[in-house]
Structures are given as structure tokens and as C-alpha cells.
């Protein structure tokens, strides 16, 4: 078994009102920042999966993304490998991009 580390980036779909992004935009004048617009706030989840191969590990992450980390009705997501492969006994929490 090998440990594979992934990052899931979840974002509100286009056209879905993102009050967090809007609130950030509202605060920008207080930071005296100009020219920043279309702020969208999402969520990033990183995790490690122990599986025989990367495809199987990725399938687990796909399932978690669609059922848990994102609501497919209003959010989209991307999945990326981060860090290198690790053996069963390594500390999967160490390392990363």
C-alpha cells in the first residue's frame, strides 16, 4: 500500500451568489486597496489516502469530494496530487507542496 496525498479545491459555481466574496470586496476600501474585484471564496481540503495505486486512491477522493466536501448543486471542485509518494510507515501529515 502507498500513501497518496491530494488537495481538493472547492469553489462556489459561477452565478451562485458568494456573500463571503462580496464581504471581502466590501472590506477592501478599509485596506486602501483599489482595482480588486470578482472575489470568490472557496475551501481547500488536503488529505492522504492509503491505496494500492493512484487511480484507486483518486477514486476515493472523487467520492469524498462529491458527497462530503462539495455540494454538487452549488459548488464545483478540482482534485490535485500534492507532495510525493510515501510508504506505509511514513508520516503522511509531513510534507506536501
Amino acid at each position, binding site marked *: 500500500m502507498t500513501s497518496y496525498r491530494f488537495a481538493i479545491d472547492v469553489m462556489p459555481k459561477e452565478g451562485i451568489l458568494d456573500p463571503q466574496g462580496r464581504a471581502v470586496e466590501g472590506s477592501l476600501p478599509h485596506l486602501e486597496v483599489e482595482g480588486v474585484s470578482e472575489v470568490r471564496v472557496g475551501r481547500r481540503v488536503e488529505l492522504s489516502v492509503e491505496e494500492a495505486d493512484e487511480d484507486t486512491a483518486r477514486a476515493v477522493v472523487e467520492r469524498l469530494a462529491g458527497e*462530503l*466536501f462539495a455540494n454538487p448543486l*452549488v459548488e464545483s471542485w478540482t482534485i490535485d496530487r500534492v507532495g510525493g509518494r510515501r510508504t506505509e510507515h511514513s508520516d503522511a501529515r509531513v510534507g506536501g507542496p
Partner: protein
Amino acid sequence: MRVGVVVFPGSNGDRDALHAARLAGAEAELVWHESTDLGGSDVVVLPGGFAYGDYIRAGVLARFSPVMGGVRQHVAQGGLVLGICNGFQVLAEAGLLPGALLRNASLRFEHRWVRVAVERSDTPFTRAIPRGRTLRLPIAHGEGRYFLPAPDLEGLEAQKQVVFRYVAPEGNPNGSAHDIAGVIDVSGRVCGLMPHPERASEPILGSDDGMLVFRSLLESAAETVGAGRESAEVVG
């Protein structure tokens, strides 16, 4: 009638729901979320609160609690389920009700009295509510903005699945599509709403309009139980 009120880690409206159900004349018990046994409940209530701290998204972690298997079975057998606030979010996340409850458009946690119109008086959840009567109920939520993509929203309206709608004078408190405060599933046995009927159970609380929902459930369950007994006698 037996009412089972589910308790998730982080539920906070469970005792109020228990109180309202008993006040309506039901036998009511709490059901811990790790149990799949609903104790012969005719009605299951998923109460308000912040199940699992509302982490990731309100309701999504509670959806995977063992009790939800029991709830699905209960629904499959024709049982009634009422989701209040966080309970509504859990039912939406579980796919037992259509739509999603998103962060309030105001970005504020909205905690105040609202008025809702009752769009359907022919459901097990509203049958005791006189036609045309609006309800004064409190809300307390940060993620209550009802959302459904446009074509599905039209379908929801066409199938008359909107049961409660925010109306004047307070109006829509969270930016919900079509002012939707509560919906019902296609079977008509699962209903969810963001306002708290259990917190409007006695005049001293500011309103007892919420009792009309619990009385509706009592009437409906009595009928179902009665029908069940009749058929049992025929068979026996």
C-alpha cells in the same frame, strides 16, 4: 402518536421540539444519532442546532450519522419526517428534500421573528392550519438561503412543493429563492422549514402559531395509526 426527536452532537432545539410535541398531546422521546432504532416513532423530528458544529457545510456531516439510515427506512415505510432549521439542512444534504441552504445573503446570522404564508393546507404538516392563516415564527440561522437551479425551482413550484413562504411585513430574511421558507418532498411525507415552530409553542414565548404544525402532525399520525389498526383487525 409517537414522536422521535433526533439528537445530533450540536443539536440545540431537541428539548424544545420534545416540549412542543408533548404539549400537542404526543408521546415524545429523544433518539441519539448513533441509534438506528427510532423506537416505533410515527413522526421523526430533526431539530434545530449546529450538528457537528456545521463544519464543511451545515447538515452535511449529520447526514452520515447512523440514525439517518433509520430515517430513510422510516420514510420508505411512509413515516413522517419534519426537519426544523438545521434539521431542514440535514434533509437537504441527505437528498431527502430538494435544494440547498446557503449562507444568508446578508452575511449575518439572522435571529428574529418572521411571518410565513402557508401555501398548502392539505399536507400532514399543515392540515390543522386554517386556510389563509399566516404564522408568526422565529428564525435563527446563518445558512438559510434556499437555493435550487432555475429549471428545478420551476418544477418545485409547479408540483406545489413550497409549503411555507416568507411574507410581509418582515419579508424574506435571508435571500431565499421565491421567498421559500419550507418545502415538502414529492411523497408529501418529508417536510423541512427554516423557521422554528417549536419555539412558538406557547403565548408566553411571543407566539403559539407553531403548535398548529405539531397539531397537524398529531391529527395525521392518529389517522395513519387508526388505518393501520383497522387493516390489522381485518387481517387478524
